[in-house]
């Protein structure tokens, strides 16, 4: 069997890259993709720890529910993004500065 630590390293890398994507890209859809990557990394961690735990189903159930919540989040976020595109004509979050100053 492959040791747990390899999966944990991959999950940590995915989380960090997802975070970097979410804070670097100035495009709302790109930021959403970064958040998806982070959620995926957390899922991988849950599944990996579920393998080494005593109750296998618990960790997997957690990541199943995270998956459903991610789907819901993306649906609502894309609806809001389409509305924002209609209103501002751009997807750059820096240009949506109506409440600034």
């Amino acid at each position, binding site marked *: 069997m492959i040791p747990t630590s390899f*999966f944990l390293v991959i999950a940590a890398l995915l989380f960090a890259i997802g975070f970097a994507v979410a804070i670097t*890209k100035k495009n709302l859809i790109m930021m959403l993709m970064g958040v998806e990557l982070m959620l995926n990394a957390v899922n991988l961690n849950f599944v*990996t720890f579920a393998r080494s735990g005593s109750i296998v189903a618990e960790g997997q159930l957690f990541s199943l529910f995270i998956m459903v919540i991610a789907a819901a989040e993306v649906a609502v976020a*894309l609806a809001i993004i389409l509305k924002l595109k209609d209103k501002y004509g751009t997807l750059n979050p820096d240009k949506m500065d109506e409440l600034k100053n």
Partner: protein
Amino acid sequence: MEDWMNQLDWAWLQWLALGIFGFGAVGGALYLFFTKNILYGAYGLLTSLISVGGLFLMNGAEFLAVSQIMVYVGGILILIMFGIMLSAKGEKKEDALKVVNVNSLVSLLFAAVMAGGLIFYSVKMGGSRSLAEPSAEQVQDLGMSLMTTQVLVLELVGVLLLIVLIGASYIAKK
């Protein structure tokens, strides 16, 4: 003897699969970070998601691997691509597709520090655990606990999805 050979082959194959899926997951994510094209970024995310599904499979989570591919790849990614297509229409279509990177070196450095810390702590926490062999009745266990102990959460998630369905289509309507 033959049994031992089978065992050896299997372990070798497992390391190969870990290499492929790990490279796919991290490589796709890195491609998403470095690309300037939003649609190519979506393809990088696709690679990463499928590879994470493979890693689920290697961890003995068959049901989750299949739902990863169905929900993430078949649902969320298609939704994101539709979002790209729908926001890239109208008079200012170039602006929606434009991806500007700000402070990409700083955030990469920050991400490296974060990854280092996460790797250190998570490996310290879980690296030395003894591993249980994945049980053969994993899907059955999952279904049983979904229908018995976790049934309230299941129902709440169903209601949440209904609300999201109604809410998203209400928000997005003209």
